[in-house]
């Protein structure tokens, strides 16, 4: 009897792990982007190595790309270094024959949004990318984790990675979610429960009806933030929701020759056997989860929006509250908001754009609040515009931008000013993440939009009708 993680891991071992060496693990899909790949290609060049499997590699540009263009449609780079980095990715990928989604592609986007959209991410795969939020793809029942640039070089050259097998942890949620509670709230509640180091050394499997009832977008939101609990990866067993999402996508097994359903039959085996044991099991009651917001400078410092901020028990937490300019005994509700960011690989999919537009519809962004909405990919942008979401968002007084990572990492020029409070749908609220001195509050797209309207941190329920 095996867990889902064990099944996938075992079928990808090229050379077994021993005390003296880690396992050599075969990688099915390697996603690359401009920030963590240039130095890896340099190593390849120095050693006169080739990319072993360009057909298992997929490239895009997202981190350094601006979300504004000039009137001629030219991207407005923050500086020459960013422009060079993008150009370097494009030329490296072209030189090695890698499928690349640059400015001219309808599939360009945040790497963890566009990979699934293309159907390149499939159940049972091993997937890596030089980016910690690669854990997103675990939503498809895959082992997916972030790697460093040296390892990007390893995978480019050998399609393999050296790794020791992590332990497994089940996160089991029972009960139903309350009205207005979103996948983002679920994962923030999980991280608050187990802590930012709670998943260190483990692969997480999210189990229970709450997850099987979620769409793929919500599952990706959950798996995306596994890394914020310290886990390299988190996964959810694939089911009909997964298979139907993939059907007909460009890189998915083709339906034309009747292949797809045959492949699906194989994918159905990808589940934890009854009676298989995990190294650790965490059980939580889903019905207790409320709309969440972070109040400190790491994602584990999260609580229901109207809950009292706890008294710090250590210096680090006390410093975090100082940085956030909040005090124990207060709540995050009603803290004044300067900026709102909806986007990122956590909440930059069509469902997230809909959620934000739904709240903004017929309302106005409060005076003094600047809100930007950044679709996760060109596809998300096109689909949202086809539904008229952009018009709703713009009518409410928010900005509708070009796809990219944007204010999630603030390396493309999109950032907040020192001291500004940002309600953000991204995944990290570290000091300075959204600009030096900027204060980040992580929340769902619904909460972000509601806070933009109210001008203070609030859940949708807090808006009244």
């Amino acid at each position, binding site marked *: 009897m095996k867990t889902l993680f064990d099944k996938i891991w075992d079928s990808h071992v*090229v*050379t077994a792990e021993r*005390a*003296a*060496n*880690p396992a*050599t693990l*075969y990688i099915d899909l390697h996603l690359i982007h401009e*920030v*963590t790949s*240039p*130095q890896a290609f*340099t*190593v390849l060049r*120095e*050693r006169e*190595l080739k990319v072993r499997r360009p057909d298992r590699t997929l490239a895009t540009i997202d981190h*350094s790309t601006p979300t504004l263009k000039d009137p001629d449609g030219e991207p407005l780079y923050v*500086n020459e*270094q960013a422009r*060079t*980095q993008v150009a*370097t990715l494009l030329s490296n990928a072209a030189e090695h024959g890698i499928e690349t989604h640059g400015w001219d592609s309808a599939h360009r986007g945040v790497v963890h949004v566009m990979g699934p959209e293309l159907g390149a991410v499939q159940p049972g795969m091993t997937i890596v990318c*030089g*980016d*910690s939020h690669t854990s997103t793809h675990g939503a498809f029942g895959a082992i997916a984790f*972030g*790697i*460093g*640039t*040296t*390892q990007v*070089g*390893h995978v480019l*050259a*050998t*399609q*393999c990675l*050296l790794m*020791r097998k992590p332990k497994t942890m089940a996160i089991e949620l029972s009960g139903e979610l309350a009205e207005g509670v979103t996948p983002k709230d679920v994962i923030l509640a999980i991280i608050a429960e187990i802590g*930012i*180091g709670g998943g*260190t050394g483990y692969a997480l499997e999210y189990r229970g009806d709450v997850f099987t009832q979620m769409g793929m977008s919500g599952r990706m939101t959950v798996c995306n933030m596994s*890394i914020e609990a*310290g886990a*390299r990866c988190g996964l959810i067993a694939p089911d009909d929701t997964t298979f139907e999402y993939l059907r007909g996508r460009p890189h998915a097994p083709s339906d034309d020759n009747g292949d797809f359903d045959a492949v699906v039959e194989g994918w159905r085996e990808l589940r934890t056997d009854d009676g298989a044991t995990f190294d650790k099991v965490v059980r939580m009651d889903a019905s207790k989860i409320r709309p969440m917001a972070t109040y400190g400078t*790491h994602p584990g410092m999260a609580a229901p929006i109207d809950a009292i901020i706890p008294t710090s028990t*250590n*210096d*680090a937490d006390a*410093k975090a509250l100082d940085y956030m300019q909040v005090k124990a005994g207060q709540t995050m509700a009603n803290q004044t908001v300067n900026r709102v960011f909806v986007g990122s690989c956590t909440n930059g999919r069509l469902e997230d754009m809909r959620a934000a537009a739904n709240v903004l519809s017929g309302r106005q962004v409060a005076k003094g609040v600047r809100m930007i909405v950044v679709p996760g990919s060109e596809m998300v942008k096109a689909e949202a515009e086809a539904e008229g979401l952009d018009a709703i968002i713009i009518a409410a007084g928010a900005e509708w931008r070009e796809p990219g990572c944007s204010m999630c*990492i*603030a*390396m493309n020029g999109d950032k907040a000013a020192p001291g500004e409070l940002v309600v953000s749908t991204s995944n*990290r609220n*570290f*000091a*300075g*993440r959204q600009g*030096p001195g900027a204060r980040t509050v992580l929340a769902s797209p619904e909460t972000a939009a509601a806070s933009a309207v109210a001008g203070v941190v609030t859940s949708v329920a807090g808006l009244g009708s």
Partner: protein
Amino acid sequence: MSNAPLTTLTSRTVVLPAENIDTDQIIPARFLSVTSRDGLGPHAFNDWRWNEDGSPTDHLLNTPEAQASKILVGGHNFGCGSSREHAPWALTDYGFRVVISSEIADIFRSNAVKNGLLPIVIDKGAHRWLLDHPGADVTVDLKNREVRLPGNGGTYTFDVDDFSRHCLIEGVDELGYLDGQAGAIAAYEEARTK
């Protein structure tokens, strides 16, 4: 690329006691748009060390003593957050060869080893001692997996897996090792396509 071999070294420590020092602090994202591995040392802990106008702060890391140090002692859960390898590049370019803490984040640890930076997770008591004695002359002995504290500080062993230890001591890297398995990799691919 291979790294300089690391066997035994003695150095005074630089102590950064804050808990949860994340890789955004070690190297802020705006320095990630480089296309080379070198030259990040001046930006290690950039926002702690430089004012907005580019003038240096009076942070410890700007002192000559710190800049001569090879051993960084960080607070609990060092290196959490983003997987950016720029973090160990910045630290090694600054001059560190060893990072010691009571807990070090997974990805940072694996990135560090690959770049000739030895991450040591040490006993809580020894960690406390190190935090309480900034600038102490500490010996790290990778062959014997030992950290030796001066005076009556004591000697502590640490875990490092054989493979990482081998790579660090020899200064070899993993790509050579993996490339040596080309036959097994081809056989695996072949078996899977059947």
